[in-house]
């Protein structure tokens, strides 16, 4: 029978299955960061257990690390509670012999950036992390999803996860994207179409010629936001682009193992005629640059559009949500998106902090200046290696000359656990993935956009269509 990519990934990892479909799934790669792991390591210690396969784990501190000066190391983290969390990760990794890229290691970065960058994420793998954006890794034809801390402990102790198979959804995007329209815009357009709960209970496979045309960076951006559509996992079939990206990376297979791996990876796609439980189709050529206006990623419109009117809401619950969102965001119905002025800009996060994202933003920023009304425009590379690459290409200079700040890698203002945040009422054009109330700082107002759109907004001081910029 014709199988979906998801069927193949699922079936190849089932260790045991109960009558009700509850299965034990074997986990190949376990990524760990400092926020969701301390209680799991503690539980392991209390039970006198050890990690089942320590070689499957890769740890990195990313959420709490400062993006400014790090010369005094972990002891220089100003917030004592953040510092303790990073120290606790370091200690747990030492105690259990876990590979960790510490804060001042050049390989440090956002967990979802460094996994692929190191070749620690490979096609065909099951990848988990105590972080919902683990869906990112599905870009490699892997089954990757976020888990809670109890599950982090469970995977540490047993190398398995208790799970039930999801339904499969195909999101098909055919055709050619317009210039200036990116994977981020596809992601937001999909969420706008199906809603933030549209993918609940599903694993999404992104397919179609527009997806095949994306680079690995673009595919990661797209899969990253599968969770914002409600799907725990997003994935893309393996092709030459995948294999070329993986080749030669530090954790990738070498020599004869490489050939055997590639032969296997080539089978990681949905078979002709495979059945999906749901199919959503979009035409790539119709997708415009997207800007979120509200406090959920589904509250999104085209840059040429307006904040929607209550009359357009589907029911009373949505009307209530929109009214709250207008008030929180300080916007009125029918306002033009291009008339919204911004106070800050954030280019970074596991959605858009890879080299390609920075190149795209730098192309827009080059030779221009950040608008006077923009108090802060931050560029936070996804990893130390992305940062080094960008500096080698001179991107840091372009950004600095335009008035952006160039920072050290980490999650930064994506969730504002460190010192980078919005103040109450401040409005931000952000390349991150969540515009929830308070996400970037209490009272902060987030508009999600692509890196190009964020850079253009920084220069103009308000949202503009990057295609006419």
């Amino acid at each position, binding site marked *: 029978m014709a199988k979906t990519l998801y069927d193949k990934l699922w079936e190849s990892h089932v260790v045991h299955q*109960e009558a009700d479909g509850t299965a034990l799934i074997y986990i190949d790669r376990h990524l760990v960061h400092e*926020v969701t792991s301390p209680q799991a390591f503690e539980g392991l210690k209390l039970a006198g257990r050890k990690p089942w396969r320590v070689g499957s784990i890769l740890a990195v501190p990313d959420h709490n690390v400062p993006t400014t000066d790090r010369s005094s190391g972990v002891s220089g983290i100003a917030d004592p509670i953040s510092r303790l969390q990073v120290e606790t990760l370091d200690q747990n990794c030492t105690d259990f012999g876990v590979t960790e890229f510490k804060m001042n290691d050049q390989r440090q970065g956002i967990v979802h950036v460094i996994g692929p960058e190191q070749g620690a994420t490979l096609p065909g793998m099951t990848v988990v992390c105590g972080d919902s954006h683990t869906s990112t890794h599905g870009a490699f034809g892997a089954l990757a999803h976020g888990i*809670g801390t109890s599950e982090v402990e469970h995977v540490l102790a*047993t190398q398995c996860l208790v799970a039930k198979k999801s339904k499969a959804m195909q999101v098909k995007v055919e055709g050619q994207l317009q210039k200036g329209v990116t994977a981020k815009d596809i992601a937001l357009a999909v969420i706008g179409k199906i809603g933030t709960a549209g993918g609940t209970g599903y694993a999404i496979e992104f397919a179609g010629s527009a997806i095949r045309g994306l680079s690995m960076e673009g595919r990661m951006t797209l899969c990253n936001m599968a969770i914002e559509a409600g799907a*725990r996992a997003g994935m893309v079939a393996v092709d030459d682009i995948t294999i070329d990206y993986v080749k030669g990376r530090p954790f990738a297979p070498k020599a004869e193992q490489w050939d055997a791996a590639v032969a296997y990876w080539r089978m990681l796609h949905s078979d002709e005629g495979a059945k999906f439980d749901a199919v959503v189709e979009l035409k790539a050529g119709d997708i415009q640059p997207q800007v979120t206006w509200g406090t959920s990623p589904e509250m999104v419109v085209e840059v040429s559009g307006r904040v929607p009117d209550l009359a357009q809401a589907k029911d009373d619950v949505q009307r209530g*949500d929109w009214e709250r969102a207008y008030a929180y965001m300080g916007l009125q119905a029918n306002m033009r998106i291009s008339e919204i002025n911004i106070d800050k800009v954030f280019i970074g996060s596991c959605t858009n902090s890879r080299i390609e994202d920075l190149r795209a933003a730098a192309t827009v920023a080059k030779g221009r200046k950040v608008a006077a009304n923009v108090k802060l425009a931050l560029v936070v590379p996804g990893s130390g290696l992305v940062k080094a690459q960008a500096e080698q290409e001179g991107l840091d200079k372009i950004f600095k000359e335009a008035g952006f700040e160039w920072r050290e890698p980490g999650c930064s203002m994506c969730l504002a656990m460190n010192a980078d945040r919005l103040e109450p009422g401040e409005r931000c054009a952000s390349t991150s993935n969540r515009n929830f*109330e*308070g996400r970037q700082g209490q009272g902060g107002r987030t508009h999600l956009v692509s890196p190009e759109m964020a850079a253009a907004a920084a220069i103009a001081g308000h949202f503009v269509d990057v295609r006419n910029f």
Partner: protein
Amino acid sequence: MDKFTKLDGLVAPLDRANVDTDAIIPKQFLKSIKRSGFGPNAFDEWRYLNHGEPGMDNSKRPVNPDFVLNQPRYHGASVLLTRENFGCGSSREHAPWALLDYGFRAIIAPSFADIFFNNCFKNGILPIKLDAAIVDQLFNEVAGQEGYKLTVDLENQVVVTPSGQRIAFEVDAHRKYCLLNGFDDIGLTLRHVDAIKAFEAKYKVAQPWLFN
């Protein structure tokens, strides 16, 4: 994990859709390395009028009288009634920890986000999906009757209203078994150690590059 068998609990209505885990427990409280103590900061930004940080004495903070859980009639609630897609966003298990610590043992909504839904079961909280129309009805009943309680009977998979209406709900057999007995998954999974080892041995031959 505490067992969940039957609960007779006061119901608190949170009339919002898409309540995300950032709202349930804001990020500054995620810096804790413990599992407990999150209750006073559940819904922190809605619940208090000032900005909360870890280590503050929450009993001295100004509360937001407009936030539903601050109304005296809902104090001591153990059943949370809410709208669709509850628990979306971040995978933080701090969200169910905070709800549990606050006192909630059951959550009723038309739908839940997957990771949150899963995390609830790991912590002895029962999330119950009911039809949107029934949820609407319950919201009306709660609003109309102070001290409104529901009985949640996991064994028989029913919610019973004060008028005696019995509303059936679905729950996965495995999850029900774990909740009723207070079992955590690790102990259960370790009964399959041999199967895991056998799988691993075969797998290592087939895909040796995963074991470098």
